[in-house]
């Protein structure tokens, strides 16, 4: 029986079915669904019985609290702050430990390379470039993600997360997007690549794309150390008392700014290039359940943490080699890195940064974690990624290279708004299957970052404040 005959009779029968469907006043599909449910009801009636009177509903009690008019939002905010605080504080010690151990091993590697008599440049590319960059990414990326993702998964398993979407949907409705986008943004706090993958929970392709394109405006774990360090030095540090609180407020302000930009851009996309059917929401609010902690930790580590780390390393390793080469190959008196930074300087100055900062962001494409190390490396001309021993040391480096408060604010703004990291771009491509949309996901934040910094810088200069 050949395919041709099959398809021919298929369309014939199809047409016959069409005719039958059209000849009917009511929709068959609706009727079919209703009939199936009637069967289900009939069966359930015979087997299900409810014991006891109106039960005290735990779900209702909790929901009365977390979705209430007065307590709903504050509780959400509290939860967000709590998760952040645990992630950031909790990651400090493991990060330091990993860094110490991995860099100690680097010294061992150096010894081996010397022992086998490898040329300096090989050692440079492989050890100072590939290994050091990868070690950095692991040390800075792994601990926060190993805390954040389990916490997030715990919230997910407990049944609380859909309540966030429930509370925030009205805001997203105004932006012509779906309330579930709030959940993808929450995931984006951990890692934007994971946030992009999380957009699968949004059914409508149009709304899913909007969520993917704007996920980057939520700062990921990788950007927090940079933001916190700069805030501590230039803002909190400038005001002696309550510096911790000031820092927290500034960071919160930045995050709110990111959320605001997300909503505005979502709205703009909805009325321009992503116009389409109106958004809708069908959100199931499951019962609250006690999550199984062991299973949660295991699953989130394998499915999310290690998965993202693997993807990041695949990009970071070769990038490390490139960075070392750029920083150590000299053209004339300067390394290629400096030559490029010099060329970028006019553009950098225009937006309140300098060429080296811009270069650091560009080279930080593989992972946001390495932007600050590249910056320090460049300012100190050490030719290999560099850490800072204390905030004071970092302040000295930055200030002696011309940083002002305006520079600091612009750097934070740029970090918040700039292009997505390579892992996120890769993930965007995998999820959308389209080079065009991946490029747009790169273009939109870039344009916004440059524009925002430019406007701020020019206004401040015009006002004679800097």
């Amino acid at each position, binding site marked *: 029986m050949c395919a041709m005959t099959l398809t021919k009779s298929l369309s014939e029968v199809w047409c016959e079915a069409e005719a039958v469907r059209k000849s009917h006043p009511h929709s068959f*599909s*609706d009727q079919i*669904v*209703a009939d199936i*449910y009637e069967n*289900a009801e009939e069966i359930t009636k015979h087997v299900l019985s*409810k014991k006891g009177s*109106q039960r005290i509903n735990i*779900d*209702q009690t909790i*929901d*009365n609290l977390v*979705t*209430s*008019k007065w307590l*709903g*939002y504050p509780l959400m905010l509290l939860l967000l702050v709590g998760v952040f605080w645990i992630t950031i504080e909790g990651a400090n010690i493991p990060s330091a430990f990993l860094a110490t151990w991995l860099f100690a091993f680097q010294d061992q590697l150096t010894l081996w390379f010397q022992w086998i008599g490898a040329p300096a440049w090989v050692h440079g590319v492989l050890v100072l470039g590939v290994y050091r960059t990868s070690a950095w990414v692991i040390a800075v990326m792994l601990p926060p993600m190993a805390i954040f993702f389990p916490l997030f998964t715990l919230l997910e398993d407990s049944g609380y997360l*859909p309540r966030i979407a*429930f*509370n925030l*949907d*009205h805001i997203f*409705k105004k932006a012509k997007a779906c*309330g579930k986008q709030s959940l993808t943004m929450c995931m984006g706090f951990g890692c934007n690549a994971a946030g992009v993958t999380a957009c699968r929970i949004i*059914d*409508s392709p149009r709304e899913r794309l909007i969520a993917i394109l704007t996920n980057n405006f939520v700062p990921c774990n990788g950007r927090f150390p940079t933001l916190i360090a700069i805030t501590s030095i230039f803002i909190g540090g400038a005001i002696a008392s309550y510096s911790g609180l000031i820092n927290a407020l500034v960071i919160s302000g930045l995050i709110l700014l990111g959320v605001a930009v997300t909503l505005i851009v979502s709205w703009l996309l909805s009325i321009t290039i992503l116009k389409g*059917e109106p958004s*809708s*929401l*069908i*959100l*199931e*609010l*499951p019962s609250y359940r006690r999550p199984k902690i062991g299973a949660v930790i295991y699953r989130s580590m394998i499915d999310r943490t290690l998965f993202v780390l693997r993807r990041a390393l695949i990009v970071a390793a070769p990038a490390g080699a490139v960075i070392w080469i750029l920083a150590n190959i000299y053209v004339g008196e300067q390394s290629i890195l400096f030559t490029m930074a010099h060329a970028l300087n006019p553009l950098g100055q225009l937006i309140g940064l300098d060429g080296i900062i811009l270069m650091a962001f560009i080279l930080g494409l593989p992972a946001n974690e390495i932007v600050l190390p590249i910056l320090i490396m460049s300012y100190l001309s050490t030719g290999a990624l560099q850490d800072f021993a204390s905030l004071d040391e970092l302040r000295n480096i930055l200030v002696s290279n011309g940083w002002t408060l305006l520079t600091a604010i612009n750097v934070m703004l740029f970090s918040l708004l700039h292009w997505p990291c390579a892992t996120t771009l890769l993930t965007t491509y995998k999820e959308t299957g389209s080079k065009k949309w991946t490029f747009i996901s790169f273009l939109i934040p870039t344009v916004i970052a440059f524009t925002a910094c430019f406007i701020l810088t020019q206004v401040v200069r015009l006002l004679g404040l800097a």
Partner: protein
Amino acid sequence: MKDTEKIDPLADLSPGSVCEIVSLELSGLLRRRILDLGIVPGTLIRCIRRGPSGDPTAYMVRETLIALRSEDAAQISVRTLSNGGECV
């Protein structure tokens, strides 16, 4: 049990009251999803709560809590039952 033959949009239902679905004016994917969840004519639906800003609203239908936006709920017609004592 006497039904009052008042047909309202679901969106007008206030928290605590129970109604019976009469018809759906929705279309497209939204319609299919709603039907697949069992929100078909003849089903009992109870309004549970409104969101902190009034929208969306959570409804209990077939032992499942589902949140819908008011403009979508407005396109579902329900018949008020004379007593709210039904367990949904």
